[in-house]
């Protein structure tokens, strides 16, 4: 089973809760770009996170690294309905 893996260089904007990403087929090239983005600041600002993730599709990344792709949903949704009734 040979799955084609793609590389996604993700730049997550914390305030906007939004991820932009670029897709690479060549891992070395993706790593080089990753390093370049990291080099622009000595220490990363809190407003932004850069990360290099790889999978068969961006859909898989959205499922395994959902914190970079927030929706209106949250883990409370995984409780049976009606369980949470805050005062």
């Amino acid at each position, binding site marked *: 089973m040979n799955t084609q*893996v793609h590389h996604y260089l993700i730049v997550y904007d*914390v305030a906007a809760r939004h991820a932009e990403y670029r897709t690479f087929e060549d891992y070395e090239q993706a790593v080089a770009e*990753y390093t370049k983005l990291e080099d622009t600041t000595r220490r990363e600002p809190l407003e932004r996170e850069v*990360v290099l993730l790889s999978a068969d599709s961006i859909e*898989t990344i959205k499922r395994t690294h959902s914190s970079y792709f927030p929706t209106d949903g949250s*883990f409370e949704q*995984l409780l049976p309905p009606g369980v949470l009734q805050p005062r």
Partner: protein
Amino acid sequence: MEFSKGAVDRAARLILDVWQLPPGPDGELPAGGPGMDELVRAMTAVTWWRGLHTGPLTKVAANLRYHVAKEGGQIDGRIDVSQRLKRRPTMIDKLAREPQMNLTQMADIGGVRARLPSLAHVQAVSRRLAKTWTVVRTRDYVTHPKASGYRAIHHVVRRDGRLIEVQLRTVRQDAWANQVEDDGRDRGVGFKFGFGAPEVHAYYVVMAEAFEALDRGRQLTPDLVARLNEAFTAARPLLPRTAFRP
């Protein structure tokens, strides 16, 4: 360009030292620390070491996809396996948190994650890996959850001389971990590392307990539901609001 392990470890320490000094005026390098040339060389050594993990990481992820498929671990017909090459700031921050650790001993520079449909799948895939791979360390956070509530099974495997960390999680365990990370980023507080208000952590712990019960096919007991609601009420003002946080 190549570096010895010692040179890589010294380079990582140098970056950490620079980050821990107060910056000079206008964001310049701290006075009395290393110069720009030295810092750039250190960054190069650290990223070179990280780059050595890409091949082994890809192989481990491909093997994991195979094992997940063999155990019928697809979710909605998909195999949820991904890999990540650790962020440089996180590598250096980890050295700050664990001063005894050297960068070349860090086991999760290359990380692979599988999101699986059930606890039985997590355990079955875990057993399979233990049988067929060179596992150098296992952390069973299902049997022994972290104090934070974190649950998963982690294996550190050696592939082509490099250490790669494999995380196996149920859908609920994965949602929990991602939510803690997302909340922390949103609030600018390292909830994931135990920082922030105790009310928030108490809520995460009870929520993880509830997810564990559901993962084991149990009903939530009235006591657990009561504790969950109490914890949620206390944590709610400190958490980001979403449509599903009533």
